């Protein structure tokens, strides 16, 4: 399918100018860009906190910032990254942009609710930002009681309210996606003809809708206890602080699947397009997303192995935690098998996909260490856990996000970015990431606890390596900002299908018109039916 027109005269970006046309838009594509601005903003705030933390940790003594300040830094790093970047990024940016187009619809089911979800997200973010500016928060992003309800002297209540508000943004986005995927597929688009990104988005939305309300009520309980001294988590009146942990992790474990499932969906798309063939074992990959969503709700107790959980419930959570690893392994094997006899591209989006597969595999394998209670007792609450989840969140989700951003950038903006710079940035990010986080596995097994502002001197060398890696990683993240912005103005025009990929999004113009398609598509083909040859316009 070739395009005769590189950039159409009318598309969603020039359909109305001015602040009102953006702030009151109902177009899912514009809302996606509003979210892009929001998540990028919060990402750099969270990233700045990480930079300060790693600078402090380059020396054993607590000499850069005070311990109070350090505690606020790691708390806000976690809060910003988890609630304001990792959870919304791929669903609200890439999902919002792509779900209607991939499904052949004109928009999501509820466009006004979509816009409202962005305002709710920004409101929650600003509340939480206020909490930082007005003195900070030092409870950790996990808000464990009774420290958060009784002992902390920082702005717990505004931060808790900010997160509570933002939770509704996730819920509304999830509802929108579920209804859209169920009810608005184009004629001929059966469930099993959907691209795998939609399966992942659907599974993610199920978790969003079922899990987020629980964190909402839990964080409300913390705020209420702080203000009214209710006592749910206070042993002095018969409350149980560990009950908080159960309620908290009941959401926060599935939350990590909210963070990684969309990235897995992106990787499926990148691997299919990067090899120009269907993903191997499509059905298995699709169902593995659902399996992860379901099993993900059954394993929260693995965060409480040393927290006072009974021996037998610990063992049940342990065996279930091993089970939840299997669908992820199935995906990794299927992606790798897809590359066999593929026409394998080395372009930037695909590099990010391959990076994801490798780094997610390492992160996932280290999850097995944590599921084994005998080892978890030693490594939980140490840098081992930090390394594990950063391999998945940063080596996984962020690389998936960047890969998707690069892959769909020509569709979103109508422009191509500079491929050499992009490859350079990907390489810097990969190296910086591994240098930052691999030493932390070793540090963790040696016993360095998390959330430590100062540490014994024998841990220094590994910490210095980690901090060096962090500075490289930081530079790596800045580079795409520059060339992507530059391409908006000066990039080559992309045309409707620069990658020679198969998918409904590549059958409309770049950028797409406001209603996505000139005519509603009727789908008669499977998700990744590649012809013998395609036309590629990137080279």
């Amino acid at each position, binding site marked *: 399918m070739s395009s005769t027109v590189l950039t159409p005269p009318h598309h969603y970006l020039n359909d109305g100018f001015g602040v009102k046309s953006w702030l009151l838009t109902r177009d899912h594509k514009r809302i996606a860009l509003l979210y892009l601005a929001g998540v990028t903003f919060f990402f750099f705030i969270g990233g700045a906190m990480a930079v300060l933390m790693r600078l402090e940790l380059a020396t054993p003594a607590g000499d850069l910032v005070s*311990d*109070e300040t350090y*505690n606020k830094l790691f708390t806000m790093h976690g809060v910003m990254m988890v609630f304001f970047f990792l959870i919304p990024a791929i669903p609200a940016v890439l999902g919002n942009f792509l779900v209607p187009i991939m499904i052949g619809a004109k928009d999501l089911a509820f466009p006004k609710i979509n816009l409202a979800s962005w305002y709710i997200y920004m409101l929650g973010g600003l509340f939480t930002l206020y909490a930082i500016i007005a003195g900070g928060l030092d409870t950790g992003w996990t808000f*464990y009681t*009774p*420290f958060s309800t*009784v*002992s902390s002297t920082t702005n717990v209540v505004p931060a808790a309210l900010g997160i509570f508000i933002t939770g509704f943004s996730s819920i509304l986005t999830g509802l929108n996606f579920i209804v859209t995927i169920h009810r608005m597929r184009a004629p001929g688009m059966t469930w099993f003809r959907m691209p795998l990104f939609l399966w992942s988005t659907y599974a993610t939305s199920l978790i969003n809708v079922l899990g987020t309300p629980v964190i909402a009520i839990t964080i409300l309980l913390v705020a209420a206890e702080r203000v009214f001294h209710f006592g749910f988590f206070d*042993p002095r009146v018969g409350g149980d*602080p560990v009950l908080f942990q159960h309620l908290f992790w009941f959401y926060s474990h599935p939350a990590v699947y909210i963070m990684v499932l969309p990235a897995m969906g992106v990787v499926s798309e990148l691997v299919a397009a990067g*090899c*120009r*063939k269907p993903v191997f074992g*499509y*059905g*298995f990959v699709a169902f593995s997303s659902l399996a992860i969503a379901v099993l993900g709700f059954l394993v929260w107790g693995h965060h409480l*192995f*040393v*927290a*006072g959980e009974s*021996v037998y419930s*610990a063992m049940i959570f342990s065996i279930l935690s091993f*089970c939840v690893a*299997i669908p992820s392994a199935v995906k990794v094997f*299927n992606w*790798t*098998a897809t590359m066999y*006899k593929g*026409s*394998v591209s*080395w372009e930037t989006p695909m590099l990010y996909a391959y990076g994801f597969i*490798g780094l997610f*595999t*390492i992160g996932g394998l280290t999850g*097995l*260490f944590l*599921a*084994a209670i*005998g080892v*978890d*007792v*030693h490594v*939980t*609450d140490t840098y081992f856990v930090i390394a594990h989840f950063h391999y998945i969140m940063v080596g996984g989700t962020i690389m998936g996000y960047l890969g998707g951003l690069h892959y769909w950038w020509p569709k979103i903006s109508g422009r191509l970015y500079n491929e050499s710079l992009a490859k350079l940035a990907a390489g810097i990010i990969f190296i910086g990431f591994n240098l930052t986080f691999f030493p932390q596995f070793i540090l963790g*097994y*040696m*016993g360095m*606890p998390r*959330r*430590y*502002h*100062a540490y*014994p001197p024998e841990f*220094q*060398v590994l910490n210095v390596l980690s901090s060096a890696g962090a500075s490289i990683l930081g530079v790596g993240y800045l580079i795409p900002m520059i060339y992507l912005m530059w391409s908006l103005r000066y990039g080559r025009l992309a045309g409707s299908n620069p990658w*020679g990929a198969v998918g409904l999004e590549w059958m409309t113009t770049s950028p797409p018109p406001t209603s996505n398609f000139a005519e509603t598509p009727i789908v008669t083909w499977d998700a990744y039916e*590649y012809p013998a*040859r395609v*036309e*590629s316009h990137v080279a």
Partner: protein
Amino acid sequence: MPPLFPQQASTMAERVDALYFFLVGVAVFFALLIAGLIVFFAVRYHRRDPNATGVNVHGLMALEVAWTVIPFLITMVIFVWGSSVYFAMAHPPDDTLNIYVVGKQWMWKFQHLDGQREINELHVPVGRPVKIIATSEDVIHDFFVPAFRVKADVLPGRYVSVWFQPTKPGRYHLFCAEYCGTRHSGMIGEIVVMDPNEYETWLSGGAAEGSLASAGGKLFADLACNTCHRPDAQGRGPVLDGLFGRQVALQDGSAVSADEAYIRESILTPSAKIVAGFQPIMPTFQGLVSEEQLLELIEYVKSLKSQTEQPTARPVPPGGPTTNETTPVKK
């Protein structure tokens, strides 16, 4: 060259490390397999013609089943192994040397049974199993000794216990591993493992205040507990002699084991469990006793043997008190 691996200083460390190395092996194998395949395929099938597409290789059920079942079996092996190590961690041997720990922001307070108190530093003998019974005065802390591979959250309002058997004399880091506020990273200390002779010497040089149990006995009298809890069964409260470790019949028909938690609860919230045949008239001592005083009272109650029992000799270090003391009953 900085150290890259923690010392093995307890009997459990070897077991944990063995499982760890197996996991490392599994992880390295699969990571290299996947990374290797990706690099190999990326090179072997690198797209040379910009318009070429891939070959649609149809899915193979046998392959899908294989790479689902085999990883599942491997994880089950890890599960069984990990659970068995954990089970051993969760079941201390019977003859442990018990030490009470109270964590508070931001220090560790240790109480040996013979009355020795330590702050942030704990002396133990090598080669004997040691059981830590810990509680927190404020927020959740965590007792973590990397060299022993031992860790447990220390909770307010509850007793938790961990056990270890040191195998090498030396000094080992103790860390608080549950974030607890401003000086969380300062809540560190050392476990000092000594040869048995040195330990005896150290122990006898110590506490002037007398054993925990005797301090508890004094408190028992000061707080007038002995007016209701008399050994002659004529008091308004149950007899405490020989109570510890026994099953207690409660008013509602159920039975409960008289362990440390039961005694603590009986002092702080006596109305929670009423012993069968008694009235709910015991006042609460919440706010009137500290965590350390509770531990002293518990040790005192433990030391009370039934009048009809033969006094059992508990191994005690020389110079310490015997276990056969009973305090005189005040009228």
